[in-house]
Each structure stands twice: as structure tokens, then as C-alpha cells.
């Protein structure tokens, strides 16, 4: 058996946690360095993973397990990575390392707890992306709520308790239904309780009646839609983003939101193809509403952070739109856009954090003309802004263009409305940039602002590199994801509309009857 690299990637941060636990809580720098080094080594491991990853193979790679975990319930420990998750796996430690570095001087209280939370989060998120067992997935999904809750609740801003509670309750509400659906799927795997399993591959090969699919799809989709967030489940997001500390916002926007879109792509689409096809119009329309609605609201925000938060609603709408186009370009663009959004919005939150640390305000009106005093900062901010509005040459363009092409093929009207969102994005982002950076630097407090220091520059550099790399030569990344994307689309299209009802053997008949009864009652 080869070296279980995925296990290491997932649990290395946990190891870092243990080391930090042993450190005295006043040794702030030692704690910070430990956390950073752990995240960085993890990042290196994922780079190697990406390097070795065979793009043309559409199966799970670097598979770990399935090892028996909770044997009596058939729950296994199994990990694997394919084209859909590979980029997210690389992105996670990348952004975590960035987030840790960005909170170097801004987090001075309870540093130990903070860094432990960060590393725990990292394990949770990586686990979500590589788990190939539904129960394991669920565990990671929930585990990651805890550190995030503390992060917002302890190190957050003014309304931190409200935001943290809202975030957790909202997410829990959705994921409980998902747990029900997972249990249902588990029960369906075999009539014999001893043979049941939560292994994803087994469940994937199962045939589920279209009627049942609808319910299961809804249960999963609610959990994911809240996470994405899809309109109208988005209101936790501005609160959580605004109140969270910089690192928390970076992780929230950069990775946590992607868990929702990833969930759709990994579970909802291939498991419930009939339901997926049925819900395409609904989800597409919700995405379009999200795109325009988020953009319009972003425009009137007075706080830079909530502006970026609402822009996330719009961008994630784009991701969902491309995904539910169910075309190679659309879904590929959607995955790429997840990464792009992670990089660009993560970077925006980081940059807002930079200025917040200096001025302790994020209100647009408090700034103006700071391009004079912080030229480097202004340049980086502008580059990230341009990436965020999808200017050609930056990563945003490639993703948006592919999504546009993919959606257009299926529904030109959706594509047209979606594209209008790009113009709106240009308006609110550039307007914000103008009010923050341009004009005369009149406020006394702003005149003394220091430009980015070496640490901040060092964080910004890889971001800028990635923005241009994906923007100019996306082939590196698309080659890795595209075959897997095709497979998913194929699965959806070929599995959908199964005609032979007798094929459904693994059925919990009593539940099925109950369901039918319910339907009849309706």
C-alpha cells in the first residue's frame, strides 16, 4: 500500500494543533510559526498531489480505504480526490496559510485558541473535499462549524455573537435535513442491516426512483444552498463576513462557500440526476436572482466588507448558473470560478483587513485618496478588483467566459441576464475603488497610513501570480478538471430517466409506501 498522502494532508493540521497545545500560551510567535509552517507544509503536500494527479483519469485517485470505521453501521473511512475536488484541495491550505499570515499582528488576544481553530478548520475543510463516505463527509462538514463559530464569536467585531449564532444555526438547520437524507440513503443500500454502508461509490451505483430523488435532492440541496449561499438563504453571509476577523472572512468566502457548490457537484448531481434535471430551472433562476440582487445590493453598501460579502452572493450565483447548465464548459467554468472567487474574494478580504488594521474602520466614506499614501496597496487592490470583475487576462474572465459559453448553449436568456451581472460588478467595484483610493487625501488619519509591509506584500504576491496564471494560461488547471467534469455530466445524463422500475431492489418499502400515501394525501 502506498503512502496515504490524503490522510496526511487532512490530519497534518491536527498534528499542528497538538504541537500548539503543548506550547505555552504566551509564546505567541512560536504558536504563529507552528501554525503557519503546518499550513505551509500541507500546502506543499497538496502541490505535490496536484503535480502527481492524473488529469485524464476520471476515477478517484490517491484513494485511502475504505477502512472500517464504525463497523456496526457500515461507516467507512475512505478518502479520494478527483478532478472536481483537486483544485479545492490545493486552494484550502493556500488560503489557510494566507489567513494565518494575515492575522499575524491583528490577532493578539488568545492567539493559541485562534491558531488551533484555524488548523481545525483546515482539517475540517480538507476532509469535506476528500471524503468519499457520506457519513465521514457529514462529520467533517459539521466539525468545521465549531472552530468557525468560535472564530466569529470570540475574535469577531461588534455584533459577533449574533453573527456567530446565526451562522451556526442556519448551517445546522440545513445539514440536519441532509443527515436525514444520508440515513435514508444508508438504509436503502441493503435490506440486510449488516450489509448497509455509507460508502459514496456504493450509493452512487444505486438506483433511486425519481420521486424519492426529489425529496433527497431537496434535503441535500437545502444544506448546500445555505452554504453557497443561494438566494434567499444568503442573509447569514453579510453578517458573518462583516463580523468575522480578517482570517475568518478569508476562509469563509474563500473556502466555506465552495463547500456548498462542491456539495452540489459531488452529491446532488450524480446521486439524483432526475431530480437535478427537474430542478435546473429553479436553481438557475435563483442563481440569476442572486447575481443581480447581490450586485445591486452591493452597490449601496457603505462598508467595504459588506460590499465584498454581497458581491460574493453574486459571484456564487455565477458558479451555480454554470453548474446547472450541465455542459462541459459550464461546469468546468463553474469549478474554475470557485477557485477564482476563492482567490479574488479571499484576497479582497485580506486587503480590507490590511487597511482595517491600520485605521480600525471599513467605511468607504472614511477613506479617499489613499492611493497617494499607499501606492503598492492601491495597485494590488486594483488588480484584485479587476480579477473580480472578470477582466480578460485575469482569472475571472476565463471562468466567466466558460460559464457564459456553457449556459448560452442551454439557455441564451439566462446567459444574457448573467452577463449583465458583469456590468453591475464593474460598477460597484470601480465605484468603491474610486471612493477609497482616488480623489484628494484629505483626512488627517489617512495621510499617515503606511503602505503594505513585507509580510503583507509576501501574502499578496502569490495571489497576484495566481490571478495572472489562471487568466493567461488556464490550461494547467482545466486539463486536470475537465475529464472528471465530463464524467459527472455523463453520469447525470445517462442515469437520468431510468425506465425500468423493477430495477429498484434496494428499497425500504414501508417508507416508500408512506411517501406515496403522503403524496396521495396531497
Amino acid at each position: 500500500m502506498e503512502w496515504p498522502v490524503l490522510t496526511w494532508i487532512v490530519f497534518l493540521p491536527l498534528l499542528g494543533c497538538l504541537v500548539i497545545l503543548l506550547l505555552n500560551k504566551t509564546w505567541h510567535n512560536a504558536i504563529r510559526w507552528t501554525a503557519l509552517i503546518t499550513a505551509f507544509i500541507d500546502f506543499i503536500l497538496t502541490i505535490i498531489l496536484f503535480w502527481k494527479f492524473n488529469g485524464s483519469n476520471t476515477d478517484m485517485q490517491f484513494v485511502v480505504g475504505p477502512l472500517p470505521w464504525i463497523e456496526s453501521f457500515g461507516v467507512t473511512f475512505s478518502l479520494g480526490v478527483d478532478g472536481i475536488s483537486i483544485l479545492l484541495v490545493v486552494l484550502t491550505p493556500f488560503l489557510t496559510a494566507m489567513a494565518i499570515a494575515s492575522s499575524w499582528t491583528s490577532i493578539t488576544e488568545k492567539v493559541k485558541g485562534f491558531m488551533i481553530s484555524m488548523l481545525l478548520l483546515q482539517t475540517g475543510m480538507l476532509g469535506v473535499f476528500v471524503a468519499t463516505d457520506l457519513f465521514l463527509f457529514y462529520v467533517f462538514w459539521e466539525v468545521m462549524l465549531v472552530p468557525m463559530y468560535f472564530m466569529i464569536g470570540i475574535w469577531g467585531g461588534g455584533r459577533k455573537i449574533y453573527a456567530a449564532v446565526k451562522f451556526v444555526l442556519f448551517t445546522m438547520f440545513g445539514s440536519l435535513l441532509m443527515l436525514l437524507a444520508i440515513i435514508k440513503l444508508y438504509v436503502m443500500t441493503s435490506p440486510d442491516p449488516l450489509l448497509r454502508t455509507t460508502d459514496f461509490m456504493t450509493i452512487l451505483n444505486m438506483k433511486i426512483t425519481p420521486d424519492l430523488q426529489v425529496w433527497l435532492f431537496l434535503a441535500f440541496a437545502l444544506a448546500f444552498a445555505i452554504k453557497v449561499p443561494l438566494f434567499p438563504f444568503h442573509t447569514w453571509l453579510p453578517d458573518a463576513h462583516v463580523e468575522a476577523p480578517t482570517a475568518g472572512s478569508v476562509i469563509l468566502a474563500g473556502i466555506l462557500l465552495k463547500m456548498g457548490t462542491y456539495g452540489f457537484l459531488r452529491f446532488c448531481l450524480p446521486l439524483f440526476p432526475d431530480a437535478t434535471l427537474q430542478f435546473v430551472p429553479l436553481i438557475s433562476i435563483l442563481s440569476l436572482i442572486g447575481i443581480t440582487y447581490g450586485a445591486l445590493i452591493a452597490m449601496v453598501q457603505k462598508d467595504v466588507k459588506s460590499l465584498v460579502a454581497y458581491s460574493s452572493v453574486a459571484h456564487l450565483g455565477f458558479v451555480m448558473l454554470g453548474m446547472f447548465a450541465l455542459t462541459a464548459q459550464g461546469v468546468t467554468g463553474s469549478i474554475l470560478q470557485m477557485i477564482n472567487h476563492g482567490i479574488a474574494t479571499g484576497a479582497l478580504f485580506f486587503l480590507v483587513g490590511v487597511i482595517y488594521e491600520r485605521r480600525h474602520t471599513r467605511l468607504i466614506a472614511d477613506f479617499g485618496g489613499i492611493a497617494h499614501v499607499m501606492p503598492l496597496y492601491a495597485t494590488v487592490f486594483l488588480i484584485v478588483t479587476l480579477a473580480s470583475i472578470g477582466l480578460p487576462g485575469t482569472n475571472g474572465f476565463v471562468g466567466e467566459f466558460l460559464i457564459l459559453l456553457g449556459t448560452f448553449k442551454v439557455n441564451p436568456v439566462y446567459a444574457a441576464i448573467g452577463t449583465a451581472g458583469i456590468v453591475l460588478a464593474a460598477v460597484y467595484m470601480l465605484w468603491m475603488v474610486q471612493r477609497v483610493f482616488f480623489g484628494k487625501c484629505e483626512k488627517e488619519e489617512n495621510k499617515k497610513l503606511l503602505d503594505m509591509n513585507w509580510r503583507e506584500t509576501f501574502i499578496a504576491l502569490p495571489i497576484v501570480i495566481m490571478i495572472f496564471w489562471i487568466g493567461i494560461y488556464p490550461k494547467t488547471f482545466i486539463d486536470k478538471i475537465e475529464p472528471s467534469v465530463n464524467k459527472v455530466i455523463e453520469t447525470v445524463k445517462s442515469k437520468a430517466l431510468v425506465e425500468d422500475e423493477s430495477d429498484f431492489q434496494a428499497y425500504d418499502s414501508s417508507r416508500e409506501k408512506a411517501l406515496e400515501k403522503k403524496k396521495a394525501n396531497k
Partner: protein
Amino acid sequence: MLPYSWIIAALPLLAFILIVFFLNRSNKISSYFSIAMVLTSFVLSCIVLVQVLDDPAPKEYWVDWLTFGDYGMSGAGQITTEFESDESHQIPKLHPETIEPEYERHESGDTLDIAIDNNAEDLDDITLIAAIHHEEPSEHDSEHHLSFKEPQRHGKKGSFVIPLGIYIDPLTAIMLMVVSIVAGLVQIYSLGYMKGDPRFARYYAYLSLFTFSMLGLVLAGSYILMFVFWELVGLTSYLLIGFWFEKKIASDAGKKAFVTTKIGDLGFLLGLAILIFAVGSASLPELDYMIANGQISENLMPLVAIAGILMFCGAVGKSAQFPLHVWLPDAMEGPTPVSALIHAATMVAAGVYLAARMMGIIMISETMMYVVASIGAFTAFLAASIGLVQNDIKRVLAYSTVSQLGYMMMALGLAGFTAGTFHLMTHAFFKALLFLAAGSVIHAVHTNDIQYMGGLSKKMKITSKTFLIASLSISGIFPLSGFWSKDEIFAVAFEGGHYPFLVVGILVAGMTAFYMFRLYFLTFTGEPRDKHAYEHAHESPKNMTVPLIILAVLSVCAGWVGIPWLYKGYSSFVFYGAVHHADPNIILMLISLIVASSGIGLAYVIYVKKTITAEAIGRAFKPIYTFLYNKWYFDELYMATIINPTYWFMEVLFKFDQLVIDGIVNGFGKVTLFTSWIHERFDTYVVDGAVNGAGYMSMFFGKHIRKIQTGQLQTYALFVFLGAVVFMFIKLI
């Protein structure tokens, strides 16, 4: 050289990168390096032009950028599956079998070849454009071996490819030349103009980036790549308009420019998507070839036409055509050399360039051609009318630019490929000259307002002379370059029988001559109206005047390549060497000359002789004057109908989000809290109440009952007795 012509664009990019990362500490090195690079580009462009002159057949060079394997999205044929299944559209498969008959038809020699043989005396541009993209017989022209190959196919079987590549044909070569020479001169000029600016090196970095993007746009071989550079020039335009970002008005203008053109670009992007899905290709030559050879099925033609209209929206935005013209005058807040380079000579002309490239698509539909021509004509008139009354020297020139771009669009809409692109070239020179000369004036008197100028010709000899030359050229005075290109446009309108357009064109020509000379007389002749400014005025340094002189020479001579009597002039060159002229129409030339001179004459009478004063006219036509002075109230109209309602709507939407959507969420929370409160009460008073009650009861009874536990035997005996009595009673009853 041709396969390496990407170097032309790459050199300014190199300058940009080096300045940003290494050279920016030194203003001098930055600027000199940037100028050196753009001049090298210019030299290379000249080489390209010479090579293309030698062999005008189009060339294309490609690399694959993005490939989607295994999707079965092969080039043209496959893409239609969606359409086939939905609307039963058919598309001819691009197999050699279908192309073969085309070859045969040509070998047998059809009417087209004969037409070219006959020196194409009566060929109009339409047939020529159609003809050019046919398989070209090589033996018909002894001087030039026209060897047109079938354009390279990009959709390989089983894959969807987005290729990157360059396409070089005579129009490309000319544009390369124009862009690199104007960019070079503007950069040299900026040495003087921008001297002492705190962000001097950054300015040169931006200029280099712009030059790179513009050259890239011209070289682009596919509409996708063109779109990429299209957006990049938009970006650099944004950066340079807002270069002096301390001024709110400048950063506002930059944003306005970016957003307004972005609206047009939205159309471009959607049009691109349609093209890719309808035809399966965005390559310039491949598309033209397919349209010309009927390789796109009839069913798909309407889709292609729609794509054309949408892409034309992009051109409308970039070339500041009605209704998206509002950004260009505001863009004058940028440094004047920038206005000359970007907002007069090159970038705004990119819209016209795009339209010219799309001629094959535009000509699919008659209606669309009329749309293009009408937008062009209306814009030409609209902008010229506003230009009549403005007082800011740069804004007059800006409106003049919009108006001239409208001319070019009109020419293209009337199928005047030659006329449109020819005017594009001559306009680039004289308009760049006008702006640079205006910049020289502004540099001297530190104001843009012509009301504070006057009499400057005595102090600024070179500037005033070159400005005069450019004014004569744009007014269309024989034999300057503007005369020839404008005449070509009139000729197109006349020959096609589009008389309304011809009338508009001539009317606008008169207006142009008037406002240009109003500008000239008010600025350079008469008594100085601001003594202080006049005294400080001085001729600009050499590095500013030399570019003026070079451009003046070009403004005079550049048009000579298109003199209609030439056997093989400009028009023949852009048609790949096929001999072609429009008939020189002496009467038309005379009319245009008379109109132009009367415009100049009128300006002379009003502003020099003062026989009729401008104020008197202003008073007499007060409503019209106010209407024109306020630019037809377009800004106010857009403000009232689009921007303000949107803003209001956004505020409402935000309130909706907070009150309704978040209200529901919080409402859930409240309901939950309320239920818990009830539960809590229930718990405290009922459940716990019962428990406590039970305890209380036992305490209560214990407390009272214990009183009978006296310890006295008599009392107990009494109780026993009483009990027995009660018992007996019960028994008895």
C-alpha cells in the same frame, strides 16, 4: 517577419513590465525605454507593411490556448447538435467533400474572376468583399500572386478549441503602422507635456500597456482574442483618463468611460457566444470564408446576424456612437496626449476597426447595414451640432471625434469598406495632431477654455500652423488627406443611391468646417482676451513641436495613397491587390469643397470680421443654443431615466433584504425564542409547579397535621372514639 509579428505588440508589453518592476525609479530611463520600444515596433510595422505590400494575401498563425477534449464539440459541424435537436437546424459538415465542389467551381472560372480581370471598374465593395474571401484563382494577376488558402480550421474532431492567433492582412498592416507611429509620436510629445509629473514613470508604463493592447487588438486573429485586447484597451483608457485621480471629475470620467463601454462590451460578449455556438468559430478569416462560401446553413444565418448586431454594440460603445457617446467628452479629463492617442486616433477607432472586420457578418442583413449607417449618420450630426457651441477646446475636438467616427460607421454601413477604413487612417493623423496642438496650447496658457485664448498664433508659430493644417484637413480642403477620405465616403453614399445619407454627410462636413475654424480663429487669431495668460504663453519645447510637424506632414500626405485616379491605390491594397477604384466624381468633390469653404467662410465672418456677432446669433436662437450647449441633455436624461431609478431601486432592494428576507430569518429566531419562553413559563409554572406543588402540599399537610400529634393518650382515645363513631355512621348509612 510575418510569423513573428507578435513581437510588435510584445515590445511595448516588455516596456510595461520592465518599467513597473525595475525602471520606475528613474523617469528618464522609463520614458526613453518605452519610446525606444514603441519606435522599434514602428520599424517592425513598416517591415510588415512592406512585406504585405509585396504579397497582400492574408496570413494567419495560431497556437491552441484552451482545448476541450472528448466533448465532441468539433468546430462547426458538431456545435449544432443543440440546435439540431431543438430547432432542427442543419449545418453543413466541414468535410473536404463539401469544400471540394467550391474549388471546382473556381477552376472552371466564374463571373467573379472575370470581374476582377476587367479591372473591376464597376465593382462595389460588397461584391469585392464577398469575392475576396472566395477561393482565389492565382493566375489572374500577374504582378501579385494571390494565393488564398482556405483558412485554417480550428475545430478538430472531438474537441472544442479556443485558439489564439494573429491574422495579418493589408488592413492589419495599415493599422499597425498607424497605431505605432501615433503612439511613438505621442510618447515623444509626452516627454515635454508630462514633464515634472510626480507619476511620470507610471504614465509611461500605462502608455506602453495601452500600446501593447492596441497593437494586440489589431493583430488578433479571432474575435475572442480581439475581445481580450478590447477589454485591455478599455482598462488602460480607464487608468489614463483617471490618471490625475486627485481630481474627482477625472476619476468620475474614467469610471463613466469604463462602465459605458462595458455596456457595449456586454453585447460583444454575447455576440461572441452566439457566434461560437452557431458557427463554431470565432476566427476572423474562417468566419468570413464560411459566410462567403455559404458554408453556414440558411437556418443559422439569422443567428449569425443577431450575433453581428450584438457585437456591433461593442463597437458602438468603444467608438462612442449614439446612444453610448456620452463618455468620450468626459474622457477629456485625462492628460491631453492620452486624449490624442486613445480618445482620438486609436482606441475609439477600434470600434470602427471591429465593424470593418465584421463587414462579412454585417452584410448578411440589409437591415443591419442600415442600422449601422443610421447610427453613424445620426451620431455624426448629433456630435457636430454639439461641437458648434462648446467652449472647451478639448471638448470641441472630442465631439468632432465622435462625429468623424460616425462618418466612418456610416461609410461601413453603406458597404464602403474602403471609405470607412481610409477615413479611419487619415483621421488618426489629423485628429492626433489637433489634440497634440491643443495640448501645446493648454500647456502654454493653462486653460482649456477658448474664451480666455486668442491671438496665440504670434507666440506659437509652429503650433498654430500645424493646427491650421489639421483643421483644413479635417474640413476636407483639397488636396489634404481629409479631403480624399471624406470624398470617398460621399462617393460611396452617392453611388449606392443613399441620398439621405449623402445629404447628412455634406451637412456635417459644413458644420465640421465651421466649428473647426471657430476654434482656430478664437484660439489663434484676433486680440488676446486674457492678457495674463497671453503674456505667459510660449511655444512648446522641441520634443513637443517635432511630433506636431511630423503629424502635419502626414495630415497632408497620408490621403494621397487613396486618390481615386491611382491605378493601384489604397482601395486596391485593402482588397488584397485586386484592382479596384470607385469612380472619381468631380461634381461631388466640388460640392464638398464648396460646403467646406462656406463653413470656414461663415466662421471667418462671425469670429474674425465680426460682421455678425456670435452673441447675437446665440440670442436669436436661444432655445437651440441652450439645447446644444447642454449636449442635447443626454447626461441629464440618462441620469433621470437610468441611473437615479437604479440607485433608488438598489436602496429599496437593500431595505427589502434587511427587512423582509433577513426579517424572515430573524422572525424564525423570534418565534423560536417566543416558543421557548412559553415553554419556560410552562416549565416553571406547570411542570415545576406540579413538583413544587406536591412538595408544598406535603409540607402544608405535614405542618397542620402534626398538630394533632400531641402525645396525650386522652386525645388519641378521643380520636379513636370519634373514628369509631364516624365508622358506625358510614356503616349505618
